[in-house]
């Protein structure tokens, strides 16, 4: 018995050590970014003085406000569109026969598994074939394209849990098809839709590779702007770190909010 206890402890210790390494890997760059966002030195060779100047610059420095506006407007638009369209597609796919449903899900997962560089190049090729000028529209299309599969993957498990008779029952009870969808299906899959939307938003706001291949020379989001500046061997304004720190704060707030809300719900039930 004693030996067994010792063994469990050893495994637990290993788990804790590896977990700590994981957090070290994940948070080292984050801490560097957060401290750089309040560091007055522009070249960032040393920590000079605490400042909040870069947080003001996020809204004022024209070299970064442009890319930020682009990033956020693409993220909002592509999230709204891909969430709505993806949900409808998911409902459609779910109602297929099992065999064709699986076939559609496999197709759906192609952009998820494909490396970003392949997706980016494929989109670039189709856009140039259709003679689109690379810019806002093509980036928006690209972001919608890679977001939809994630929305579908999030909505699908919820649909599977839904009783298939509910929709028919709503129709029998006099709902129109539109009403049945709005009042019966959507409320039941809303958590999946929200999760899918959140995922689409984060994928879009973070994207570099696909935007890089579909944006052309003029249109830049924060990532492609950083890449362009770094590529020229220049340094960028620390306002970029401040922007990132703000995103970081917002995401933590969202996570806290979701967890607290869940807890409240759990208590009521």
């Amino acid at each position: 018995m004693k030996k067994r206890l010792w063994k469990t402890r050893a495994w637990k210790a290993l788990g804790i050590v590896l977990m700590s390494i994981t957090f070290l890997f994940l948070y080292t760059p984050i801490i560097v970014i957060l401290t750089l966002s309040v560091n007055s030195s522009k070249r960032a060779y040393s920590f000079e003085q605490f400042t909040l100047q870069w947080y003001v610059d996020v809204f004022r420095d024209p070299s970064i406000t442009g890319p930020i506006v682009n990033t956020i407007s693409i993220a909002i638009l592509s999230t709204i569109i891909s969430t709505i369209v993806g949900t409808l597609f998911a409902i459609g796919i779910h109602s297929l026969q099992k065999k064709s449903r699986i076939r559609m899900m496999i197709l759906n997962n192609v952009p998820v598994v494909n490396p970003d560089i392949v997706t980016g190049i494929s989109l670039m090729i189709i856009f140039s074939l259709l003679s689109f000028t690379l810019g806002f529209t093509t980036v928006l299309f690209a972001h919608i394209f890679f977001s939809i599969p994630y929305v579908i993957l999030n909505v699908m498990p919820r649909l599977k849990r839904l009783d298939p008779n509910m929709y028919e029952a709503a129709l029998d009870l006099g709902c129109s098809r539109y009403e049945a969808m709005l009042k019966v299906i959507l409320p039941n899959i809303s958590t999946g839709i929200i999760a899918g939307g959140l995922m689409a938003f984060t994928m879009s706001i973070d994207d570099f590779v696909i935007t890089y291949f579909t944006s052309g020379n003029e249109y830049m989001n924060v990532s492609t702007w950083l890449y362009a500046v770094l590529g020229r061997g220049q340094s960028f304004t620390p306002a970029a770190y401040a922007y990132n720190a703000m995103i970081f704060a917002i995401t933590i707030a969202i996570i806290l909010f979701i967890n607290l809300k869940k807890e409240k719900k759990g208590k009521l039930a």
Partner: protein
Amino acid sequence: MKRLTRMQIPYRVWMFLFIVIPTLILFVLALTNMNLYQIGAFDLTLDHFAIFSKNEIGIAFWNSFFYSSITTLICFLIGYPVAYYLSTLPNKTRKILVSLMIVPLWSNMLLRIVAWEKVFTADSYFTDLTGISLNLIGTQTAVVIGLVAMYLPFMIFPIFSVLEKMDRSLHEASKDLGATDFQTFVRVTFPLSSSGVISGVIMTMLPAMTSFVLPARLGLGTISLIGNVIESKFMKEVLGSSGMSINEGAVLSLFIMVLSVAAFMMITRVDKEGETLI
């Protein structure tokens, strides 16, 4: 329910436009001398495949294979125990830890790479901050650590989501039937988590293999992966002389596609509807 099936028809058209057609064009570009930006008459040719004989391409392929394998192996060795440990924790702690693992992923990838650059440079900002002076920039170690840090969560999450759903009474049953802890793990737990492992390996290996910013920055431009070559063929060399660089890039992209199709077939075998992918 029948009528609802109509709603997925536009998706078929959409996927055909954005997946099937570009793949076909990649094939055409790889096998002919068609110019993507001035499509006219074109002839079949195998000339573009000659790039496989170039020395630098061979090195890039080897690097891709080497770095992605090492990264995946380390991610698995760290990630599996972490996922396992997570799944044994009480509900609340587990949720907090998983959330804390997701949060860093929302930081900009390029800024994270820049931050690692500072960490690995001797007498840099990081030295000023922590007193630690590492001189790793430009080395294999720097690239491997950077890749592991970038892709480790993508190994942990799929494995964790499978382990979390696993029926714990199976462990007890296995032990009641006389298996030791080790036997229970090898013959019950691990086989049942294999779908998560396969997804994790693929979601780590393919992105690591095709990454191009991270190896270029942390390797100081001396370490070139296949992603760097593809980027250069599609984005940089196009402006230069030959004009056929896109076609050569298409050959390399098709090669990556073959790998991802193989990965795909493995995933579909264990997990038909891709539930372990998110």
